[in-house]
């Protein structure tokens, strides 16, 4: 085994490059800047493109254009930039443009604290688009996840033609950590499915039995239309309620019905435990320490660390929680994802541990709540 020392943001950059990312555009913002720095180092010498937009809106706009021209694209920002991305995110959702969006979360609200961590955007990432259609959000726990989940994020963006978020946190992204890069279980590279050359091409038509349209790039030898307006399969504006309804239901279903196929998580199950700790992101580390410190005691606890947050992996959560009376949810905010857990597990005794002051949740705080 050999170890590599990387910052979380550098690992995201390498993961992107290895996933086939060939276009990055961003606007510097702490704590996401080092993703941009990394891409600027990696992409131009390898034939890729890395641009610095005049603002966040331009940066993600460059990416959407390049993605429709066929390149795998990524952008990275933090809370204030995600807010500016919002309208473009809605566009990528509704018009099925593959893109990976890294949100290195920092303490909000608003400009908040540039150098303090948080997981305060977790509901915002899900609901921060107009229309409220689903998105995919993956949350890394450590530098290893930064690499691996970024590779998964590109695959998912390609397969489902949608924005995929990496919900990082200053406390992972700007933390340096060793990892065994060669020992990682790397997913195979997936590419968007291109349309059959022998059949007429409609940019938003889905082949029989599938929920994601085939892709052709803008600039290819068959004409492609992309539009942010409500459209039918032909990419022209439509006012037909039946056609509109079908498309909107498909957008929802294509992700929500597929989440079992990309539910990433870590689990530590302890027999006889009556408590299950559910968490995600950097808090997964403190939770693991807390749960492990209880092994062999008379009050052990089990652990579920979710890495796919949206769509909510409902089945996994319900199955994992089935044998437990008590659930402890840990988040680096004042209670966001716990709402999903409460919705999914009615009747269970659900406690919450969280903080929003720029400090990590400590293992001791989690233990206190486990002990009741």
């Amino acid at each position, binding site marked *: 085994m050999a170890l590599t020392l990387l910052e979380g943001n550098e690992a995201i950059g390498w993961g992107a490059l290895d996933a086939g990312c060939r276009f990055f555009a961003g606007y510097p913002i702490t704590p996401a800047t080092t993703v941009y720095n990394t891409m600027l180092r990696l992409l131009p010498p390898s034939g890729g493109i890395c641009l610095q937009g005049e603002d966040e809106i331009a940066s993600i706009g460059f990416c959407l254009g390049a993605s429709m*021209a066929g390149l795998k694209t990524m952008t990275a920002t933090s809370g204030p930039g995600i807010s500016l991305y919002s309208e473009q995110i809605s566009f990528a959702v509704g018009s099925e443009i593959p893109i990976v969006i890294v949100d290195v979360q920092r303490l909000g609200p608003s400009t908040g604290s540039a150098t303090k961590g948080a997981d305060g955007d977790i509901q915002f990432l899900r609901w921060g688009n107009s229309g409220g259609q689903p998105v995919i959000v993956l949350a890394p726990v450590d530098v290893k996840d930064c690499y691996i989940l970024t590779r998964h994020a590109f695959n998912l963006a390609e397969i489902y033609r949608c924005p995929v978020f990496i919900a990082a946190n200053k406390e992972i992204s700007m933390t340096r950590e060793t990892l065994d890069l060669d020992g990682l279980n790397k997913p195979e590279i997936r590419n968007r499915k291109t349309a059959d050359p022998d059949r007429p091409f409609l940019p938003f038509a889905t082949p029989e039995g599938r929920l994601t349209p085939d892709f052709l790039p803008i600039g290819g030898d068959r004409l492609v239309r992309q539009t942010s307006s409500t459209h039918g399969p032909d990419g022209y504006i439509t006012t037909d309620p039946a056609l509109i309804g079908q498309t909107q239901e498909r957008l929802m279903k294509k992700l929500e019905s597929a989440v079992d196929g990309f539910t990433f998580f870590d689990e530590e199950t302890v027999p006889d435990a009556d408590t299950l700790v559910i968490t995600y992101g950097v808090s997964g580390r403190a939770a693991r320490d807390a749960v492990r410190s209880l092994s062999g005691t008379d009050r052990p606890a089990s652990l579920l660390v979710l890495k796919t947050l949206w769509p909510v992996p409902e089945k996994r959560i319900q199955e994992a929680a089935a044998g437990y009376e008590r659930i402890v949810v840990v988040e680096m905010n004042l209670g966001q994802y716990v709402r999903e857990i409460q919705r999914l597990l009615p009747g269970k005794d659900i406690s919450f541990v969280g903080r929003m002051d720029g400090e990590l949740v400590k293992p001791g705080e989690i233990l206190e709540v486990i002990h009741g």
Partner: protein
Amino acid sequence: MDSLLNSSRPPVFCPGCAHERVVRALDQALTGMGLSGEQVVIVTDIGCSGLFDTFFNTHAFHGLHGRALTYATGIKMARPDLTVIVTMGDGGLGIGGAHVLSTSRRNIDLTLLVLNNFNYGMTGGQCSSTTPQDARVGSGFLNRIERPVDICEVAGAAGAAMMVRASTYQKDLVDQMQSAIRFKGFSVMDIRGVCPGRYTKHNKLTPNAIETELSGFPPLDHYAARNARTEYGTAYRREAAKLEPVPPPARIHAEHQAPQSGRREMVILGSAGQRILTAGEILCLAGATAGLHATQKNDYPITVMRGHSVSEMILDEHEIGYTGIENPSVVAALAPEGVARRKKMFAGLSADTLVLAAAGVELPDTPARVETIDFKALKLKSPDRALAALARLAENRRMLTPEMLDSALALRFKGRVLEGARYVVETGRS
């Protein structure tokens, strides 16, 4: 081919709308240049001018209001061979002003057609960024108290070399468009016309009046020479071709034996400019040379050259969970700024903790063992103290060994910097 117009989707503008003439002129311009639909992308945004892409059999990209230039830039960088035409109204121009400025500064090979009809047609004739102050529009008195923008002058000031103020009705509109499209760089056409649906209901504006007004503007010719330069994408590719590929991240093999086992934590408390983060990184690299996992969590303000700098490192044979400091093995107190930042920590330290304090840095009361280093006497400058503190630890075989430290330096530095670092280590040991 005689036309790129989409025969199944004829223009749907109000009768007499200037946009319809521009659609036909653009068609003639493109076909006259021998371009096929596959070679052209029309990028549009919102408003009546945002319908343009639907009338053509070309590639089409219709997006958010004011943002058309952003998509066009991405497309052009990805596919430099395509002819990319952007249309915007005076509404998109106002919303996306920052993009017009930056595209002018970049000089990327796009052609921007501003369909300027002096008001927002689609939403009810409100004033736009180009509405004259004496016009009657749907924004009450508001247009009377702000000035219209002359986008060609603005683009020229921002670095664009090819600007044309044009009337929808001028005879050589197609020729002018072709020169704009042929231009290797960013070109802007401010194409003025009437909006019978809204604007000319309350304002008198005729093709003649537009031409008369145009003749009163200062000329733009001087920008051609002043702003002439290599097109952005060409310049980008030329610069990128000079870069060496980046080697993959270093793999560090375990070659040393760590002096202790279990989780070991170190905190370095310093100030900006003391290379605290670099020292922390070196400790992590040193750990890796003994096969240890390592984390480094930093705390510093956004100011670069002033304030505290705190670095917290953990080494462990096992993967590290919580990255915060619970029970440090070592605290290096190198500057008052850092100590102030972790004041509360000192009282809670254990008697096993070693505090390496720079002489003169005052410490809060602590049960930990304190060792003072007189860096001045050692002639070690402030930026070298963190590394010297590591040397002292290595000498005591605490957290790391001299061999681990030296391998870490060799991983991190080269040449004279490495020699300098080794000198600091040698001096700091004693």
